[in-house]
């Protein structure tokens, strides 16, 4: 009975146990960058930073969508196909049907939302496993992209070439010759900012976390679980389509065969960013860092010259494994910390 008061002064866990994966991600990023700077002569330039953002803008946006889905405890494998579909749809509408690019982009984004919502409904209403539904979605959208057009279409519309890709870009006086940031980089940054705000400060975002952490408890707490599930896949569909738009702007063309396996890169970036694949824990900031790590590795391989691009995938796989092991270890640590604090 002398222990009555012990609950109040129970030992606190080390602050920010949940931040450890994020810190680890940041350290890896800094380490990779430092390695590049020390190894290669021109690595520490603004041009490298610019290219990092430009070359990975579409991956970053897709990864934000994946972050939403994975935090909610699901998975979306249809990302790459939806991107290809959006790209070829816009190219076809603009070049062959004479639709204004802005209207075409809007249509592609709406198609993405519609497709994502359908996937969400199949998952929620019929309780089909997310990976199965989105796997079928991957098939479906890839086929649909080829239905739109079976070959790559170059987008030469003046609006895309000048207004979107030149007028809206920003010249910064950084480095010796200055750098130009195209509109895609701003779309990327805006996507991250908005996603961060929604996940952090909006009820829907908090519901996404709750859903992924404990779906049953969420339902018992009266949260709109079904609506949130459908919305999450709608968001992912939208962001996949947006990533497709950005990819189209980047390549100045639409290609139904593009972006194969991109969903794996997106998922890898999310996991490396410290988001738990089982749901409930994670952040888009981590995802941004994860995307940058993957991008930097790609850059390093380009700088090295004699290494091939497939090393990116291997390193990504190894990093994913390391982060999964790290999370397991942290969980085990947390459990034993809680136990010892209860025993003392």
């Amino acid at each position, binding site marked *: 009975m002398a222990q009555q008061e012990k609950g109040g002064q129970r030992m606190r866990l080390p602050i920010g146990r949940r931040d450890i994966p994020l810190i680890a991600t940041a350290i890896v990023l800094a380490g990779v960058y430092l390695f590049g700077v020390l190894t290669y002569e021109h690595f520490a330039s603004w041009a490298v930073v610019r290219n990092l953002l430009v070359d990975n803008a579409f991956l970053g946006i897709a990864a934000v969508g994946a972050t939403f889905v994975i935090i909610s405890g699901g*998975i979306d494998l249809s990302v790459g196909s939806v991107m290809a579909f959006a790209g070829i749809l816009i190219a076809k509408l603009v070049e062959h049907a004479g639709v204004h690019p802005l209207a075409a982009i809007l249509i592609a984004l709406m198609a993405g939302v519609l497709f994502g919502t359908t996937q969400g409904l*199949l998952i929620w*209403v*019929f*309780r*089909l*496993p997310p*990976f*199965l*539904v989105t*796997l*079928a*979605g*991957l*098939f*479906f*959208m*890839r*086929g*649909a992209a*080829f*239905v739109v057009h*079976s070959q790559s279409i170059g987008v030469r519309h003046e609006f895309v070439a000048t207004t979107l890709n030149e007028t809206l870009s920003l010249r910064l006086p950084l480095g010796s010759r200055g750098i130009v940031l195209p509109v895609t980089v701003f779309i990327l940054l805006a996507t991250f900012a908005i996603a961060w705000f929604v996940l952090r400060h909006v009820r829907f975002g908090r519901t996404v976390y709750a859903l992924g952490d404990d779906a049953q408890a969420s339902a018992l707490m009266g949260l709109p679980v079904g609506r949130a599930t459908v919305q999450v896949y709608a968001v992912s569909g939208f962001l996949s389509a947006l990533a497709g738009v950005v990819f189209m702007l980047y390549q100045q063309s639409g290609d*139904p*065969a593009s972006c*194969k*396996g991109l969903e*794996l890169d997106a*998922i*890898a970036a999310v996991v490396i960013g410290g988001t738990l*694949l*089982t749901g409930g824990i994670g952040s888009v900031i981590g995802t941004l860092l994860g995307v940058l790590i993957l991008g930097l590795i790609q850059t390093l391989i380009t700088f090295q010259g004699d290494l*091939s691009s*497939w*090393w*990116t*995938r*291997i390193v*990504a*796989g*190894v990093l*994913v*494994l390391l982060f*999964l*092991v790290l999370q*397991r270890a942290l969980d085990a640590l947390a459990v034993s910390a809680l136990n010892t604090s209860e025993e003392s």
Partner: protein
Amino acid sequence: MPLQSTMIELSRHIVRTLLGIKWALLALALLLAFNAIFTDNFFEIRFQDGHLYGTLIDILNHGSKVAIVAVGMTLVIATAGVDLSVGAIVAISGAVAASLLVERGAPWYVAIVAALVTSLALGLWNGALVVWLRLQPIVATLILMVAGRGVAQLITDGRIITFEDSHLAWFGNGALFALPVPVTMLALVAGVGALLTRRTALGMFIESVGDNEQASRLAGVPDRAVKLFVYTFCGLCAGIAGIIECSYIKAADANNAGQLLELDAILAVVIGGTSLMGGRFFILGSIVGALLMQALTKTLYMLDVSADIAPAPKAIAVVLVCLLQSPAGRELIARWRSRRRGGSA
């Protein structure tokens, strides 16, 4: 007497399997009927130079690769798991065989054994992650899915390695017992799978682990060993499929070998009546599922649908079959039936 009771058991099992895959069989029947009407010579089978030829044989031949992987995948899914890495293993297996043969000048059988041992080890790796690291199967196998194709390219040094070795090419192009070798291999894999799971206690253990893991452990079932086995076996099946694939095109293409194969295999298993929640499994059903997918693909080709577009209708077919098999779907059918009965009464 023992023979008689074995026969009874076997027929009972077949009846149960047929009931489990009634939707897939129905779809297959519809597809064949469609082709019987609209496609010329669909059912024609010719015998020439010790080979059988014909559209149906084609379907069997090209469906074998997916079907072999589906056999392994069936056992994994029966334990309530899944293996997303089979496509990557197919690529690695082909890469190992071809590079040993061409770059190292190894004899064909060494190349094949090395490829199979590699796939076996990769399967074991998946199982180890599931059992010891306690990762969810999707997550555990995702790692190899991400990294595997890169590894395959590492082995082939990013090139497509072509070969002319007639022994290795035989596995994809030759004939055995008048049937294409892949079909014979399928029969072999399915036979081994059936023997292992029906003649020993293993099949029962797999089902019980997938059906009720807690109760199985309480009954003393070695659940970890069972899981290690199914992932290893699945890896081996993928390895065999990898050899067939690279043998068929006489080349190892690390980038495209086994592309999207995991999807085809999982879908074949689901269509075949095995629930993704684990439990009862139907190896024969999965094979029918794989052949159904192949028949659908073939039909689409015959309708002049391009190979690029074919995935779309396949996806729709798969979602429909899954909806029919889902609890909500079954309820819907039951309600519709009872309403119709009520209406006619």
